[in-house]
């Protein structure tokens, strides 16, 4: 028996429990199931339903076992007459105010009230009295609320407050009139509701149901498929419920360790694009200037012939390939193999270039590995979280739940952001910095830590190098120096630095070493900058200085954007590396791949050794005549790239363009051949999420019409171009990749079927690596870099007096290719807007909701304005999802010199009233 374990008696027999367990948990372990209605494993005990009451020897009243701690020697009776009487009465009372319409209720068969009425033998309530007959609230696009079926278990309220932090619903009124309600009974769209649907999933009765499932069948009629969400890099597990082959609802997968059943609005309600009529269902070939339906054979032969012709005529490097962060690891691996082996070029890249190229570059320099050092779940253990350049609640909502949970548990949250993002409400320190001033801010924090002796000297001495140069460089970066650059007062910088270094938690109990740790979370506010790599290096310096690496509750954690952007990078869909970041100009690596792929020796052309060009460079090269053929899989540069007017001109100009996608995207409209691919729910394979966790995808539906899985298409193109890879399944592709990629070497589909794994996982018996750099850095020692503040490439001036920064909103993803095609999501957020501070709005003379013209040196858009304090004076914000008001018409394509990432986050604009 462990130190914490003790004996107690339950229903007349001895059992073991551990300190901290509730009686219910102890009973569960002892194999005794106590009824429960309001209890939810992810929530604090509510203790309201009283179904779990048990008799405890020596206690006057019955006790709710969900909340009562088990104690040594306790004598528990779970099924005494008293407890049963109380349970029966509770169910009778609930049924006395509950419609007895199980025959027509959607929740029939899954309803927990129904289950207990059955178990306790309550046929009908003996009580006749007033009932609530409230009207069903059907005012929102996602779910229905039938107040009459609500039993006030409080799960939805706790989910909304304690997990999501939205606080859109609460209990209202007292006594029998107590109800769950939104503020003033307003429709959910007018509240702080984020439509994550946790409330719906938690509801034990039919009070909350997804619109899509209402009237579509009962639980036992549904087939269930577990897979991974296709939206963002969090990689939430989902359960698709199907009836007769059609999706009826989606829930979070409670068994998935990433999200533990939670989702955001996109994962739960944003899947309806899958079954839209305008999906691409047949290959299209441009004939007489028009894209016309064609057979697969025709389309494939046109693609193979055209690309081969261009390579033959002008050289292989006249071709460019864009892989996709939305496609599987297997597909990305095949794409880079196709480019490198079949067509002989390293010109393969994907949109990671536009989001985290600076991360990959910067963290590789500092640590040797460019990925999240710690895990999502680990954030829950962090006593301090420094969020910079990440609007986590909208970009990575499920990770934001973890941060908020940590905050509620007492963690200190530091937020650096020009905007009043949601996490500011949870923050002890908010540094409202000017866009593009990150290096100055972070260097000043380092300065404070050094000046006040708060650094981890042991860690610096043992595990880092380059410290002295770094110290000398930040010596002058005092908070007073940074204040005018960043716009953040010096004392706020000091306070935040102390908090990050753990100085304000010295007196709190517990392990002192653990209490002083802190995690850094960042996203594109850091990376999408002309000095993005410097930003990343500055953060790496900060973490090294405080010793916040290689330990739980610490780390440097870039939040990756696309569902498989980590995987696409891992798979070598980059111009300079094969899978596993094995450099193309490394002879040994190249020879390994040549051997495996059977090229070099037998064929005339070995693999190219010269690194290829990047996304933005490809567009520029088209203009310059350097690229003639392009193959784009699942990407939409016509909307996603900076300065898209320029991009569209390039796409128009390129001689031959193949686009492989599921919709006729803005980019596909320029294509010569369009190949219909499969969405995430229509294929197998693997995704690697932001925390390096490799998860198995499962097919929910078949691809529509003649559409094919993308991996099949790539194999077909290779075959049409004369190369048969000899691969026939996703798992075969994975096995080949794993055999060539050390960090994936221990994985296979069969193993991932059991549980997802964090890379590196070098062998079949390796458990995976949740936390990087625990013993040593990938590069040996952590390297300090000297980084100096440089202003953004474009600063406001008289002509363009405002700073524009761009970003996401909760309801849409990326260029909206799919989210805009989801009726649910597009109803909730149908159009773009520009956020303007009231003072700025007054200067311009516009009011909330009015249309404005926004112009930069590169273009102009018309957009509705939202006057809000979320942005500061002089700063405006536009979400980049909307083609009608595309922010990237305005953004600056200035590139980071190392990572070649464009500066999306800062440019100078002018806003005028639209006449």
């Amino acid at each position, binding site marked *: 028996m462990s130190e914490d374990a003790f004996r107690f008696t339950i229903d007349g027999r001895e059992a073991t429990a551990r300190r901290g367990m509730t009686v219910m948990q102890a009973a569960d372990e002892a194999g005794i199931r106590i009824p429960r209605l309001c209890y939810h494993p992810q929530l604090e*005990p*509510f*203790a*309201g*339903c*009283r179904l779990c*009451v048990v008799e405890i020897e020596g206690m006057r*009243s*019955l*006790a*709710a076992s969900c*909340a*009562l*701690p088990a104690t040594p020697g306790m004598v528990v009776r779970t099924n005494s007459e*008293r407890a049963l*009487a*109380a349970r029966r*009465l*509770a169910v009778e*009372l*609930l049924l*006395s*105010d509950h419609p007895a319409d199980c025959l027509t209720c959607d929740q029939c068969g899954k309803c927990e009230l129904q289950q207990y009425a059955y178990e306790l033998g309550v046929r009908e309530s*003996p*009580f*006749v*009295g*007033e009932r609530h007959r409230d009207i069903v609230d059907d005012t929102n696009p996602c779910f229905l609320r039938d107040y009459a079926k609500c*039993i*006030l278990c*409080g799960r939805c309220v706790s989910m909304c407050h304690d997990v999501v932090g939205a606080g859109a619903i*609460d*209990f*209202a*009124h*007292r*006594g*029998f*009139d*107590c*109800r769950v309600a939104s*503020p003033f009974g307003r429709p959910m769209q007018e509240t702080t509701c984020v439509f994550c649907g946790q409330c719906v999933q938690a509801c034990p009765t039919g009070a909350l149901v997804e619109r899509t499932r209402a009237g579509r069948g009962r639980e036992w009629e549904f087939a269930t498929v577990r897979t991974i969400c296709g939206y963002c890099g969090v990689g939430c597990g989902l359960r698709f419920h199907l009836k007769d082959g059609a999706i009826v609802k989606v829930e979070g997968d409670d068994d998935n360790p990433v999200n533990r059943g939670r989702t955001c609005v996109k994962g739960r309600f944003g899947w309806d694009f899958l079954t839209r009529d305008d999906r691409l269902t047949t290959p299209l070939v441009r004939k007489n200037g028009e894209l016309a339906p064609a057979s697969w054979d025709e389309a494939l032969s046109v693609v193979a012939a055209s690309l081969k012709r261009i390579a033959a005529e002008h050289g292989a490097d006249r071709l460019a390939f864009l892989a996709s962060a939305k496609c599987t690891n297997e597909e990305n691996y095949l794409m880079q193999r196709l480019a490198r082996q079949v067509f002989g070029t390293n010109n393969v890249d994907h949109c990671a270039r536009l989001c985290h190229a600076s991360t990959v570059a910067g963290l590789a320099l500092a640590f040797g590995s460019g990925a999240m050092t710690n895990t999502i779940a680990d954030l829950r253990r962090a006593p301090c979280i420094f969020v910079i350049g990440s609007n986590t609640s909208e970009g990575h909502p499920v990770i934001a739940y973890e941060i908020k949970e940590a905050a509620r548990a007492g963690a200190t949250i530091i937020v650096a952001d020009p905007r009043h993002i949601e996490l500011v409400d949870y923050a002890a320190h908010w540094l409202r910095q000017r866009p593009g001033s990150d290096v100055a801010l972070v260097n000043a924090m380092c300065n404070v830590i050094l000046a006040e002796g708060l650094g981890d000297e042991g860690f610096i001495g043992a595990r880092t190098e380059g410290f002295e140069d770094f110290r000398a460089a930040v010596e002058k970066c005092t908070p007073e120096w940074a204040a005018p650059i960043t716009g953040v007062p010096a004392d706020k910088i000091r306070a935040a630095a102390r908090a990050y270094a753990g100085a304000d938690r010295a*007196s709190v109990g517990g392990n002192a070493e653990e209490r002083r740790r802190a995690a850094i979370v960042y996203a594109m506010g850091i990376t999408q900058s002309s000095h993005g790599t410097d930003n990343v290096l500055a953060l790496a310096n900060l973490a090294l200085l405080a010793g916040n690496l290689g330990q739980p509750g610490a780390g440097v954690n870039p939040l990756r954007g696309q569902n498989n952007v980590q995987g696409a990078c891992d798979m070598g869909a980059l111009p300079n590396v094969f899978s596993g970041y094995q450099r193309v100009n490394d002879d040994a690596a190249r020879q390994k791949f040549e051997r495996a792929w059977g090229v070099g020796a037998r064929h005339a052309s070995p693999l190219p050794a010269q690194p290829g060009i990047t996304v933005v460079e490809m567009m520029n090269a088209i203009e310059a005549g350097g690229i003639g053929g392009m193959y784009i899989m699942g990407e939409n540069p016509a909307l996603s790239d900076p300065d898209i007017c320029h991009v569209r001109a390039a796409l128009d100009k390129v001689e031959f363009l193949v686009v492989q996608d599921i919709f006729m995207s803005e980019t596909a409209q320029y294509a010569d051949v369009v190949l219909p691919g499969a969405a995430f729910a229509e294929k197998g394979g693997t995704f690697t999420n932001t925390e390096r966790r490799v998860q198995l995808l499962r097919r929910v539906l078949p691809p529509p019409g003649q559409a094919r899985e993308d991996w099949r298409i790539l194999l077909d193109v290779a075959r049409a171009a004369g190369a048969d890879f000899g691969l026939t399944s996703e798992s075969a592709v994975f096995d080949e990749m794993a055999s060539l990629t050390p960090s994936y070497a221990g994985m296979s589909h069969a193993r991932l079927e059991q549980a997802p794994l964090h890379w590196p996982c070098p062998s079949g018996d390796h458990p995976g690596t949740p936390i990087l750099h625990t013993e040593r850095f990938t590069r040996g020692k952590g390297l300090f870099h000297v980084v100096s503040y440089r202003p953004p490439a474009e600063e406001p001036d008289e002509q363009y007096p405002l700073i524009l920064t761009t970003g996401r909103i909760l309801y849409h993803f990326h260029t909206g290719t799919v989210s805009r095609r989801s009726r649910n999501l597009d109803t909730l957020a149908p159009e773009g807007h520009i956020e303007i501070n009231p003072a700025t709005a007054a200067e311009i003379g516009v009011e909330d909701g009015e249309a404005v013209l926004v112009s930069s040196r590169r273009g102009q858009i018309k957009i509705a304005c939202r006057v809000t304090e979320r942005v500061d004076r002089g700063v405006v914000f536009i979400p980049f999802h909307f083609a009608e008001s595309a922010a990237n018409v305005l953004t600056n394509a200035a590139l980071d010199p190392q990572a070649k990432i464009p500066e999306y986050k800062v440019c100078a604009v002018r806003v005028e009233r639209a006449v």
Partner: protein
Amino acid sequence: MSATDKSRSERSVNCHSERSEESPIGVAPAVGDSSVAPLPRNDIHPKPSPRLRSLSDLARFRARLERDYDPDRARVRICMTGCRAFGAMKVRDALAREIADQGLADVELIETGCHGFCAGAPVLAVDPHGYFYQRVRPEDAAEIVGASLKNGAPVPRLGYPGEGDARIIRREEMPFFRGQRFIVLRNCGHIDPCRIEDYIRRDGYAALDRVLSSLSPQGVVEEIKAAGLRGRGGAGFPTGRKWELCAASPGDKKYIICNADEGDPGAFMDRGVLEGDPHSVLEGMAIAAYAIGADEGYIYVRAEYPIAVEHLRVAIAQAEHMGLLGDNILGTDFSFHLKLKEGAGAFVCGEETALMASIEGRRGMPKPRPPFPAQSGLWGKPTNINNVETFANIAPIILNGAFWFASMGTEKSKGTKVFSLAGKVVNTGLVEVPMGITPREVIFDIGGGIASGRRFKAAQMGGPSGGCVPAEHLDLAIDYESLTAIGSMMGSGGMIITDEATCIVDLARFFLAFVQSESCGKCVPCRVGTRRMLEILTRITQGDGREEDLETLERMALTIKDSSLCGLGQTAPNPVLSTIRYFRDEYLAHIRDKRCPAGVCAALSTTPCQDTCPAGVDAFGYIGLIAEGKFSDALRVVRDRLPLPAVCGRICYHPCERRCRRGDVDEAVAIGALKRFVADHEATAGLDTPPPLPEDRPAEVAIVGAGPAGLAAAYHLARMGYRSTIFEALPKPGGMLVAAIPAYRLPRGILGREIDYIRRMGVDIKTGVRVGVDVTFDELRRQGYRAFFIATGAHNNRRMGIAGEDLPGVMGGLEFLREFNLGAPEPLHGRVLVIGGGNVAIDAARSALRLGAREVCVVYRRSRAEMPAHAWEIEEAEREGVNLCYLTAPLEVVAQDGRAGGLLCQRMELGEADARGRRRPVPVEGSEHVQPADSIIAAVGQAADVEWLTALGLSIRDDGTVVADRHTQATKVEGIFAGGDLVTGPASAVDAMADGYRAARAIRRYLEGLPLPSAAAPVKSAVAVGPPPVETEACPRAAMPCLGLDCRCDSFDEVELGLDEAAALAEARRCLRCGREEQV
């Protein structure tokens, strides 16, 4: 609700900080609430008091205050808190003007908190004389100033009513104050709560001084533990133990919370302390903070208490200013910061976990425990919560020692308890009494008993969480355990007194409705369960109750108590359980009889007077008709239920009057006198003639006994067209009316006239016939009688069971009266002892006087309060010269010369209450003594002669009464009905007539072959009376003209003379027509 809470929280913080900067010490700031006007003050400390930087500073400051205080100075202490609602501010202004006008510069006018005696609001005390004036009006100011302040003379008319017309003018002589013991309320009514100097002068903060100078935190905890103080919020958890647990909890941040969320209906103890002596709470909290190691505290106070909030703000600001709160208190290391948090009025926020949630800005919903607040409370920190009264006890305990405190009270409950006495008690107000006192002392001695002379029903203690204390437990020693044992509870000290005009079902319904509407909604048993119980109770009060409802209610109540989350739900069913336990009959009256005995439930009652009348006479209707001068119509209404209106107008004990709502204004309407008036008026005028029987046919009903029951049955049968024959054993008809009631109360002419009326309806009365002896049942059956109504009364005396009771010179009461009324009584002489306390005893005593006795003494073993005879009869007897010898029990008749010559008696004292709430007499050892007597009349009870009925097959109860159905009077033998005293035991004429009425209705159905009714139909007034000329202004009840005392004892003339027409019309207009809106 969270929005409200947040705004409250902001408000409290803001106000607090503003106050601490701006408030000048000693001057009350303007009250923010517009409903409460700011208080102008005559301030004797214009300069702010100094900041006290050390313990000796405080001592020096107190010494200075004591030196400056002249105890002989004239002072007026006027309640300016609770009394405000009764015009105290105008009185204060008038006094201030008068003081100035009469040039009394030296008089101090002190605005105090509650004096406790709320019944007399507005009240004030004039010192140093100790005068206590009540119901003071601004017009009284000149006299108060002129007489009391200038010359030290009292103003008697403003005193408390004593015996007769006497007034009690000194506070310490008032029974209200005499029985109290002041610890918690030590300063209330004495000091200006907004002047910290007043508090300090009376040893304020001396306990904090002692704690900081000489006690360790553990020492404080030990002292409180030794004192045995228990939490006054209701649960009674030992305070010292609570502090000890919190002190032992690990953590460097701890909180003290004062729970001032007093929410029980009818409870205002905490309010009294907060308004009248806020510093006592602050000091107690500071000491508690020191003991547990807290440096921060909250007072969670109802926002509905604006004066309390204001006084707390002022007190906190003053204490902070003087260095008694805040950092380094009195120059020591101890720091304590106090904040106010105003609650938004949710009852559940009195529950400590909900209270803390509310302070934290969340919805006030309770959480399961453990963890207990001592482990994880406010913001997860160890927290100690006590209520206002508990904190107010702390300083006196520290100053006077644990031993002193523990010397008061019972074994397990020490010290005193403050109760708010409310409801149907004369002296409503705030009282502080030692634990162990009985409810009787609180309600009757201190509280002055029940208003309007009604009967006590129960005291609801512990508010909606508690239960009722019925009459049988009036002598319980009050402490936590004893109250719990009888199904009630101490609670926070609410004591709501109910009387017979309170419906117990409605009372339970009220409290349940309150808790139900205040349930937070979190747990199912409380949210839905109490609602379902409420619906059942409501159904019962609406006349739709079912027999099984009581069992359902009890079953639900027990499970709800057992399985609710917090104290609110766990105690919510208590009022229902305890009222069912003690008043099951009243529930059953609602369910079975469709009757609300208290006349409260609208669906089950008409007017209080008609409801209360056993015969259901429509008093409301005939009084209205009298007021309109329609005397004949009025008499018809009376006769609808009553065959003997003039008799009833004289001898009925008219329970209707006790319930008359006019009594709440001044005095009840003289209903009996009006009935007598209208009967006499019509009879005298010859207008009262009986309707003839519709057709001539042989009598089918035989009635045995011509008492009021038999006569009523015959009368009503005749009205329905059925002939009957009455067989009467005595030579005259009338039963007890003629055999027991003396002529001076009921002139024989009147009785004869009304019996004659019945005869004239066609009823045959055969006197001198004993059924069973002179004629048998079988013979009667053979004569064609199909139905029988037996109402032979209870004409036998009960025996006393003492030696010598058969000696010559000892008579039974009834025997004596019968002789007196029907025979030729022998004159009496010398000293006559009458034993007993009922109406027969009093009648016998008064008759004895008239028969020539020199001295008549009634010997009764209990006290006057328990005497069953009607109060006015006793009064009349006393007035005529009858002596009453209470608490005396007969042991033996002492023989002298072969006949009774005296009575060996023993003194008694009153012990605990019996099941009806009457206190039992307990013999006093060694108090035996002989009372000389020339004659002894034993009137200790009556019994019926039932032996012959057993032979008929009727069931007889142990007490010698016959079993008959309550709705039909049917016995278990078909065709035989029974009623009157034979069935009920000795009762009154009107009860007997009611039996006769019910029997007549049932007999008619029996004769017609219809099933007998299973329940009584609710009575309804059938009279439509026009808009009444109602006199609602205070107007005295018409006095009954009576025969002069000088000529009474020589004659047998009727004592009461009756109202004349003008008096009757005026009296009828005093009726408030309280049933009007329901009836027309």
